[in-house]
């Protein structure tokens, strides 16, 4: 008579079929889906481009900054980019709604620009040091490192050697 209890349980539980495609289905938070990119946290190390097995990530030097591009149609959602990203600028969201018509094949991209900042000393263009990197490198950001942060490598070197900042 055990089947009766199973029958009752199944009757009360309702259908186990997910209501797709008319309604959304629950997705685990840890599901590896579409890649997201945060240009304010990127330090431009390009490690994600190096480790990407599908070659989905490209960086391009532009006069106005470092351009990041990802083509989701060749991304295998392996998560290597996010694993090797020091500042976690690149992450995998749990968004899997990626199916599209053939006409949009080459439009399934995301692009972002890590804009160059001007050195506060000499004004040359340089990649800005992200807040995320400062938090990672220093337990507490001192005024000195906060000042050095806005200098280009050359100015930083001369400022460190001359010791004019306390």
């Amino acid at each position: 008579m055990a089947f009766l209890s199973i029958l009752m349980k199944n009757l009360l539980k309702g259908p186990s079929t997910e209501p797709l495609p008319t309604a959304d289905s629950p997705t685990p938070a840890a599901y590896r889906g579409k890649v997201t990119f945060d240009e304010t946290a990127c330090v431009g190390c390009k490690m994600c481009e190096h480790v990407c097995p599908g070659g989905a990530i490209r960086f391009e030097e532009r006069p106005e900054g470092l351009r990041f591009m990802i083509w989701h149609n060749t991304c295998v959602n392996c998560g290597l980019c996010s694993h090797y990203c020091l500042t976690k600028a690149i992450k995998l969201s749990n968004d899997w709604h990626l199916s599209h018509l053939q006409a949009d094949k080459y439009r399934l991209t995301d692009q972002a620009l890590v804009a160059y900042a001007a050195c506060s000393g000499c004004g040359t263009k340089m990649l800005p040091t992200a807040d995320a990197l400062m938090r990672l490198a220093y337990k507490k950001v001192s005024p000195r490192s906060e000042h050095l942060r806005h200098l280009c490598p050359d100015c930083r070197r001369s400022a460190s050697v001359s010791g004019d900042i306390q």
Partner: protein
Amino acid sequence: MNFLSRMSKKSPWLYRINAGSCNGCDVELATTACIPRYDVERLGCQYCGSPKHADIVLVTGPLTARVKDKVLRVYEEIPDPKVTVAIGVCPISGGVFRESYSIVGPIDRYLPVDVNVPGCPPRPQAIIEGIAKAIEIWAGRI
């Protein structure tokens, strides 16, 4: 004929072509059909064994050089009108096998693709979403 085409709008039959897939997407396709949680047959679809009965073609795999002619031959056997769906990143772009010596894909070099479902593999929900798009196209074509 009118009655038949009206009916066949509601029951497009699916056919799978494995163009050198690693089997990951094929497992997901089997899951989509066989597990009640996803159940693609709700949409009126059914997998069929013969290309001559098919309406919607699901292609997996990056189209290897060895399997190319066979895939094209089977594809030719599917009667028109048909809707082609690329399942997984491999048929769409080549994925991790892109520009390999043994890969002649992506498949849109040889076949007219209608819907792409990227993922490695795409989860069954994503496949159902793609098939739903294909059914819309299919209803317009017949």
